[in-house]
Each structure stands twice: as structure tokens, then as C-alpha cells.
């Protein structure tokens, strides 16, 4: 999940080590004996990292290759696999529910991520205010949804937004508003899911923004204030631009998170009404475990992965181009 954050560190963290290693070892590997000796002298660190690479080979690399192989076959999980070439991919391009689920993810992204990201930056700057008392308490209150099981909170939201029994509509009724079909209308269901996503992830995003903000020296804002800038100006002209890398990081995580959403819609809406909140993960899961179309589900997961990569790269491209 945090791959995007780690990439910059990669160059920072390992490149100093690599030249040092060559320098220490003198010339590049000379003979086989030299290599064996070097491996033997590095036996401890190699042993220490080996569990990861062995487990990753078995439960990461092998499944990925197996999945590609499966995607060229028709297989119900038992009996003979039947080679079908690219048929699964051909079928997939005409699979309405799958593309509908991709579109749902995109719509959901635009419903909740801009609001949530903006609120997170505002909230972080409120929490970062010098005069604020009990910063830890406020942060904890905002963060607590993050530790909750999405199954538990999904059912709680389902109860709150129930059209007849929910407290949301009961409260609105006091003000004379007629019942809102929170979970029973195509667009309202997406909005309600969006509200729940903001509730669940705002705290996490705020904590990330706050940590980023604390690396910005306070003096910058204070100097601007002395020069007569308003708080709003400081926020938009100093805080937001300096926080840009952290904001980009958070939005990238939100893109990936939105496309991988599963538990929330399964519990809150069951994907309905009329597939309006069905996500790609629900499609893949259904094709695997309900329809037992293992080959087809593999093809689907490959196309899905490809689209996430393209969308993420496109977003990064878009924001880095603006920088120039």
C-alpha cells in the first residue's frame, strides 16, 4: 500500500550502500571462488532476509504466474483445465457488470476523495494550531474509526441510514424533510457509501497530513502573518503548496483503496441497488467463489490490475506536469 511513499526513499536509502560495497570489494566479482567467499561472509544477512524471499516466491511470484496461466484456461477448480487462449479476455471486454463496477469505483472516487482530502488538510491545520489544547484527544476522536472493523461500522451505518427506522431520516423528519432513500436509490446509495468512506478514512488522512505539516517550519507561516497575511492566505499560499507531496501521496493511496474496496459495499448495500455500488473486487470475488470461474476471474484480476496501474500513473503524471 505504501509503495508510492517508498519509491523516493529507495534511491536515498540504497544507492549510497551500493557504491560503498563495490568500493570495499575492490574490482567487480573476479572468480567463482571470490563470489562464494563473498556469499559465505554475507551468510547471516542473507539468512535473515531469506524468509521474506522464500515466502514471496511461494505465495507471491508463483501465484502471479499461475494466475496468468489460469487466465488462458477454462477451469471450475476440479478436473481437467481446458485451454481457451485469449477467450476469457475477449469475453471480459463485453462483460457489462465488470465495466460497470470499474465505473462505480471511478464515480465513488470523485464523490468522496476530493471532499475527504480537503477536509483532512483543513483538519490537520486546525490540529496544528499553536493555541490548541488537548491536541492528542482531538486527534484520537477523529482517528478512532480507523481501528474499527468495517463489518461492524458497515452494519451501524446501515442502521443509521435505514429508510424507515434510521435515525438519519427520523432527525430530518423533525425539520419536515421527507424520508431520503439513503440506501435504496442509485445515487443516494453511492453518496451514503461515500459518507461512510469519509467517516472511516478522514482520521487516517488527517494524521498523515498532520505529520507532513509538522515538517514545515512554523516560522514560515508566522513571518507571513507578521507581514499582514490572513490565516486563509497562509493556508492556501504556504501550507497547501508545501504539503503537496504528502497530498499527492494520500490521493494515490485513496485511488488504490477505492479500487480495492470490498467490505464496505458488501455490508452496507450488498452492491445494490441495481449494481450501483458494486465494486471490481466484488466482481472478482463472485466470479471466483460463487461462479467458480477460476480462469475467467484470473483474467479479470489481470485487467483490473492493469487499469489500477494506468490510473495511478496517469494521476501522478498529471500532478507532476502541473508542477512545471
Amino acid at each position, binding site marked *: *500500500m*505504501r509503495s508510492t*511513499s517508498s519509491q*523516493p526513499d*529507495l534511491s536515498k*536509502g540504497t544507492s549510497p550502500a*551500493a557504491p560503498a*560495497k563495490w568500493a*570495499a570489494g575492490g574490482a567487480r566479482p573476479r572468480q567463482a571462488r571470490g563470489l562464494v567467499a*563473498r556469499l559465505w561472509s554475507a551468510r*547471516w*544477512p*542473507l539468512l*535473515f*532476509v531469506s524468509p*521474506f524471499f522464500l*515466502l*514471496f516466491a511461494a*505465495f*507471491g511470484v508463483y*501465484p*502471479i504466474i*499461475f*494466475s496468468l496461466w489460469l487466465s488462458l484456461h477454462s477451469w471450475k477448480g476440479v478436473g481437467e483445465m481446458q485451454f481457451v487462449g485469449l477467450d476469457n479476455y475477449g469475453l471480459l471486454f463485453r462483460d457489462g457488470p465488470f465495466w460497470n463496477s470499474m465505473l462505480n469505483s471511478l464515480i465513488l472516487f470523485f464523490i468522496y476523495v476530493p471532499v475527504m482530502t480537503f*477536509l483532512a488538510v*483543513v483538519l490537520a491545520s*486546525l490540529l496544528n494550531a499553536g*493555541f*490548541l489544547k488537548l*491536541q492528542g484527544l*482531538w*486527534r*484520537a*476522536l477523529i*482517528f*478512532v474509526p480507523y481501528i474499527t*472493523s468495517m*463489518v*461492524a*461500522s458497515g452494519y*451501524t451505518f446501515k*442502521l*443509521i441510514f435505514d429508510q*424507515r*427506522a434510521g*435515525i438519519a431520516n*427520523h432527525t430530518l423528519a423533525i425539520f419536515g424533510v421527507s424520508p431520503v432513500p439513503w440506501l435504496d436509490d442509485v445515487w443516494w446509495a453511492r453518496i451514503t457509501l461515500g459518507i461512510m468512506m469519509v467517516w472511516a478514512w478522514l482520521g487516517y488522512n488527517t*494524521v498523515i497530513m498532520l*505529520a*507532513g505539516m*509538522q515538517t514545515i517550519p512554523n516560522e514560515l507561516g508566522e513571518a507571513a502573518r507578521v507581514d499582514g497575511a490572513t490565516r486563509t492566505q497562509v493556508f492556501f499560499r504556504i501550507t497547501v503548496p508545501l504539503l503537496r507531496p*504528502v497530498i499527492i501521496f*494520500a490521493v494515490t493511496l485513496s485511488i488504490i483503496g477505492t479500487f*480495492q474496496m470490498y467490505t464496505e459495499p*458488501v455490508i452496507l448495500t450488498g452492491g445494490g441497488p441495481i449494481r450501483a455500488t458494486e465494486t471490481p*473486487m466484488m466482481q*472478482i470475488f463472485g466470479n*471466483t467463489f460463487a461462479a467458480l470461474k*477460476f480462469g475467467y476471474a484470473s483474467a479479470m484480476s489481470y485487467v*483490473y490490475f492493469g487499469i489500477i496501474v494506468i490510473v495511478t500513473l496517469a494521476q501522478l503524471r498529471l500532478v507532476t506536469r502541473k508542477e512545471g
Partner: protein
Amino acid sequence: MARVARTAPAAPRGTLDLVPKIVTYSALIMISAFMVFPFVWMLVSSFKPFEEIFSGTTFLPKNPTVKNYVSLFEQSDALRKIWNSFFIAFTSTALSVFLCALGGYAFAKFKFPGHGFLFSFMLASMAIPFAVVMVPLFIMMRNYFHWIDTPLPLIVPGAANAFGIFFMRQYMSTLPDELLDAARVDGASEFRIFMGIVLPISIPALVSLGIIFFMSSWNNFLWPTAVLRSADQQTVPLMLRGLQGPPGRTAFDVLMAGSVVSLLPMLAIFLVLQRYLIGGITTGSVKG
């Protein structure tokens, strides 16, 4: 790790600055209320009889009852499922944290052939979404390992975790080399140095990572749904999903009681170790 904790207080300004204070506190109160309300509603509803939940006219329960909790533990063998969840979360966390510390230590403090390549390779592996491996992983668990309906699919495949190794490496790079060299001069083996020196002084990072792992295991839903089939192997989130109400209706009464039960352990951990959890989450994003 504690970088989130405090900011230097700004110099006090005049009373004219009362407005930003009022705005800030009222905004924080509103947002906190939005965040906390679902928990309050979960709690009060869990003490209401089914009919009262559905009439939805009162805030506090008119006829408070613990019947929902009683039927949760009677109907669905909740203790068994809490134990399953706890066993899986504890075992997978302990194993993962140990292996991540081991790997992170090697990447932080050693030079070895392939260091740079292996590290990049490991980081790249984090970009693979679970969906891509889910289908074949399930087939492996079922056809090769025969691990369906056991806790093993939830413990073994994720045991060495790239994020965790990266996380531990970040922390362990800051450990002083002199300490390790002194132990080497004394003739301690590398594994003894790791167990005796490196692990004990890395406890803050181990706790941070441990909470993150424990939490994601405790709340995990997708993969357990796939590999745990029989009722007595289920974890708490699967139990909630399986609770049945009157025909055609959701069993909100027992569900709210179950939700409270599922939340309590995480809440206890959060209240005691909040600083470590938030420190852990921001490590990957800002320092990186």
C-alpha cells in the same frame, strides 16, 4: 516516532485572535461528533429490544436489556469465534513482526551481494494488489496444502511482509553501529546479537508494527471469507456477517451487540498504545 505528538506553542497573540479559536474549536467539536456518533449509536442500540430499534423514536433505550448480548453468545458461539480471531491475530502478528525485524535488520545494517536489487524487488512487490494473487492462492490453499478451514492461510502467506521489513529498516538504520561492533568483538554470533541487543532496543518499532498487523488481522474480512468455511473456524467479522434476523430483516439488535464486542479489544489497544499506532502509520508516509 513521537514526531506527531507536539508542536511548539506559538507566542500568545492579542484577544483579537479569539475568532480563530472559536472557529477552530467549533469545527473540531462538529467533526468529532460526526466521528463518535456511530459508536454511540452502536452502543445504545445494542441495549434496545429489536422492536425499539426499528421504531427508532428514542435516543436512549426505553427498556434497556442485555438480551442482545446473551443471544449473541448463545446463538453464535461467540466465545469460540473471539478466540479464533485472537489466536489468528496474535500468531500472525508475532510471526510477522519477528520476520520483518530480521529482514529489516539485515537491510539496515549489512552490506551483502544483491542488497540493492533485493531491496528494490521487495519494495516493488508492495504494488501488487491482493486481487491478483487471490484466485491462485485459494487454489494452492485448497488443492496443494489442504489448509482450507484452518488458520494457516491467514498466518503463513503474509508472514514476511514487505511493508513491515521496510518499516523496520527505517527504524533500525538509526541504531548505533558501535553497540553492534562491541558485541562482535566479544564474539557473539550475529543471531545472538539480533536476539539479545537489536530486538530489545527496537521495542517501540516492534510495538508500532505489531499494532498495525494485529489490527488488520482482527478486522480482516475478504480473505477469511474465502478460506474459513465451517462455523466453528470463523472469526468475529464473519460471525457478524452470519447473524440472522427475523425473515427478510437484518438482525440489528444482535448485530449491534456483536459490533460492540468486536470493537472492544481494538479500542483497549488503541487507548493504551495510541502513540505507537499513529507513529507507525506516519513513518511510511512522511519519513519515506
